[in-house]
């Protein structure tokens, strides 16, 4: 006998995670379930990661969102990758672009070929269209014709996370989701099995539901406080535990179609250009840097005048031991935190939602399906964790105690194996669960100075002069394609400029 279906879903918390979840549930299961979202205007949202990665396009497509309307509403710009400055050593910079490098030749990986003839053909970046276009501040949409080089372009967005949540709120409400203003005072558990029965708000209203989604952020009101879910601490690998964020006027390099991540004395700073402002932040280790010094460093690096008071966040890298317990699923910061160095925060929300939809329970809450959700979540997050740790481990910097510490620390075995195999002869074996595909690993490994000592012997079976010629043609073609793309700011102005950019109200 099949247990009855879920009828009522309650989402607690209305930040990026809450509204992404409510929007997806009301779109996909609209006719079958009732979605209620409780949030309080008195509780600020973190608005983590205003930068995204290309799978966000899949999420938008699932919702059926019009890209231009979405970009206008969120003051979005395009993103082709991340520029890393000062990571390998001071003064160094490299790009982790979306999309892949070059073309494999007769089943031999491109990066192996490049490794052999690199002195004759120029830097690896010249073989990635997104990287070349980003360096020239250019952008165009991919060409639908697969024969064109431009068809290979991959992109994502920078957007205002607060406006994104508002945009999705409108979307969800239009599809029947109900928003409730209020703060949770109490959580009632069922006596027999410890499932969440209801939430009581400060004003006394009681909300019952079959399924609860915890999007309450770091507080983890349901998964942590009510259900006692444990937190797995990763701070020994990822010591950063603070961030200070501040928006400023557009300036400096302007509307770059890429995020910038600059390594600093005890962490790193981000720069995310939006249509109406630039988002900035400094992620650091409080054991190595005081809050005042961090804020001063952040302000010193701003492109223009600050737009608001600084916002300070405290966190601990790690993940919830189980993201799904009983009838509660944690999505967003309540399920764990990884610093937004590779713009994964919004993606991990999206991945949580996709898995929840694929394993959407009935009132029986089959433990087997909950196990599967937790297994997949753990696997995905741990691979992302390894990728982020790589950025700190693979460095020559020893100029501050912080960098000397991360440079010399032990890393997870899974990561060490990857580094060693690549350092030897450029070998990479991707797990099916890895969000970051081979080109991403290559970009960061090579970018941070792990250049394979040897190349694959198979490359020697191809005549060298012909290889060099072929690669030169490839990079020339990519260069021409990038050159023919319009300027990013001009493209934005034409494609999706916010109709009324509200002038900042200056005090």
């Amino acid at each position, binding site marked *: 006998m*099949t247990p009855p279906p879920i009828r009522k879903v309650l989402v607690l918390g209305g930040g990026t995670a809450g509204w992404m979840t409510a929007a997806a549930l009301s779109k996909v299961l609209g006719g079958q379930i009732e979605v209620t979202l409780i949030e309080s205007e008195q509780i600020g949202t973190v608005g983590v990661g205003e930068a995204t990665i290309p799978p966000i396009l899949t999420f938008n497509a699932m919702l059926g969102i019009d890209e231009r309307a979405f970009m206008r509403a969120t003051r979005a710009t395009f993103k082709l990758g991340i520029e890393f400055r000062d990571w390998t050593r001071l003064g160094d910079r490299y790009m982790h672009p979306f999309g892949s490098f070059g073309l494999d030749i007769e089943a031999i990986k491109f990066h192996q070929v490049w490794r052999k003839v690199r002195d004759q053909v120029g830097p690896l970046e010249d073989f990635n269209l997104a990287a070349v276009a980003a360096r020239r501040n250019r952008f165009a949409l991919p060409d639908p014709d697969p024969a064109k080089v431009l068809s290979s372009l991959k992109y994502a967005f920078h957007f205002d996370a607060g406006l994104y949540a508002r945009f999705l709120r409108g979307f969800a409400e239009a599809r029947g989701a109900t928003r409730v203003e209020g703060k949770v005072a109490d959580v009632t558990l069922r006596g027999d099995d410890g499932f969440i029965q209801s939430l009581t708000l400060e004003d006394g209203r009681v909300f019952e539901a079959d399924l609860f989604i915890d999007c309450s952020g770091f507080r983890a009101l349901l998964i942590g406080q009510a259900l006692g879910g444990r937190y797995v601490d990763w701070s020994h690998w990822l010591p950063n535990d603070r961030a200070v964020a501040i928006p400023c006027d557009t300036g400096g390099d302007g509307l770059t179609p890429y995020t910038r991540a600059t390594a600093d004395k005890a962490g790193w700073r981000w720069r995310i250009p939006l249509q109406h402002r630039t988002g900035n932040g400094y992620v650091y280790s409080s054991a190595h840097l005081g809050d005042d010094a961090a804020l001063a460093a952040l302000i010193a690096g701003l492109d223009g005048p600050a737009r608001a008071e600084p916002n300070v966040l405290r966190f601990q890298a790690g993940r919830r031991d189980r993201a799904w317990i009983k009838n509660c699923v944690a999505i967003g910061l309540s399920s764990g935190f990884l610093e937004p160095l590779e713009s994964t925060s919004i993606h991990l929300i999206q991945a949580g939602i996709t898995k929840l939809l694929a394993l959407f329970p009935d009132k029986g809450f089959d433990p*087997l399906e909950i196990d*599967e959700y937790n297994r997949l979540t753990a696997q995905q997050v741990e691979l992302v964790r390894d990728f982020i740790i790589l950025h700190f481990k693979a460095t020559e910097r020893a100029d501050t105690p912080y960098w000397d510490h991360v440079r010399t620390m032990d890393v997870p075995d899974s990561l060490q194996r990857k580094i060693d*195999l690549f350092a030897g002869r450029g070998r990479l074996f991707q797990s*099916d*669960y890895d969000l970051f595909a081979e080109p991403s690993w290559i970009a960061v490994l090579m970018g941070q100075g792990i250049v394979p000592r040897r190349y*694959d*012997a198979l490359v020697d079976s191809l005549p060298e002069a012909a290889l060099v010629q072929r690669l030169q043609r490839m990079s020339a073609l990519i260069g021409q394609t990038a050159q023919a793309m319009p300027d990013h700011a001009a493209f934005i102005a034409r494609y999706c400029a916010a109709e009324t950019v509200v002038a900042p109200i200056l005090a």
Partner: protein
Amino acid sequence: MTGSPLNNVAILGGGVAGWMTAAALARVLPPACEIRVIETADAAPRGALSTLPALRGFHGLLGLDEATVMRTARGTFKLGARYGGWTGFDHDHVEGFSDAGANLDGVAFHHHWLRARQRGEAGRYEDYSLAAVAGRLGRFAPPSEDPRSVLSTLSYGLHLDSAGYVAALRSTAGRVAARPGEIAQVVLDTEGAVQAVVLADGERIAADLFIDTTPDGRLIGATPSGGWIDETVALPCNRLALRELARRADPPPLTEFETVTEGWLRRVPLRDADAVTLAYASDLTSDDEARAILGGEATIIRRHNGRRERAWSKGCLAIGPAASQLEPLNGDDAQAIQSGVGRLIALLPTAEGSPLAAAEYNRLMAETFDRARDLAVLRYVAASRTDRFWSRARRAAPSTALAYKQAQFESRGRVVLYDEETFVEGAWVGALLGLGITPRRHDRLADRLPAGQADAALTRLRGLIRQAALAMPTHADALKDRP
């Protein structure tokens, strides 16, 4: 570049494993590297191969023309496999090489099928796989490249005679020096690495890399790290009896498996004959009894299901039966060899040896074997026969990974795929459903599509597939077109 390239590779054994390796290395290693094959008598190719579509990619890499391979190896086409008697003596199912149905509304097809089935409106799952339907009807056509055509969902493998296949591989490996020889002694150095192989005629073979393709792992087994992980509890067949029988008038483009009291029978259609295999357990059935079942005469091969703990140890790497043996119940013959060769090429060592590459190779090959083994074990776990052979095999505990996969599927049709799976989601669904493992519930997202609309879509799809299959030439005619 540091580390010197391989100067010479010695392949001991030969047969399908030895020659697939030799042909691929001949293609990719620099001309300066010497490749030798020492062919031992016991590695000579026997019987037929029932292969997966992936093998055709391997031929592409070798530049081996498919028509030539088929001609030399008495080849026929394979659209999948038919399994008879697994879930009842009069039941059978076909696992075809094209995924069943189509995603509807973003939900995997089998959920729509499960839903329609509750209302008795669905037919068999295989009715939605063009390869399965065409296979049953004895028809074949190559896939279409037009993505709008239902023929584009097809893919196919090949049935090949092993000896003919070896001849075809040999013809592409002109630079490889081959000679017959028997192994008299494997000489190890003080660290347990293979230093040389002495042949019966006294020749001493030295090489930067030894590849062991003997049937029993004469080289790898001599090294200290050549331990064997036994799988004979879950996979009971340790003997194969081989025989060729007269060709049927209209052989289907399918490998056919039938359960029998003693084990199982496999029939592989070749151009001019059917290659039949009886797989059995020697403690329950004698070799003479096996011969009698096949009509009096047969070649008997001993097998030992399992794998090396480490297929690559220092300068010696095992490929084929020396590395792993899996009873040929999945129709994935030569797949383990192909992935071994592919990974060797991806992890090619230097003349000094590459311990890190070897460790990674061993990890990947172990996982690959274990996942393919799980599918074979599933065919025992799910069988309903009560004969001694079958009930004993069913009592063996499946691996944790398989138990989890089965439980997840039974719960709600969810397919858990691990890293290094040979078989993709569609293949697992076809096997699970075909073997009678039916989910208790389907994905709720399938319910978004109104029932009437879903039924209409399923009926249309079934009709379209049947029509497309009937429009194909018969397998026999398709073979005539490829002389």
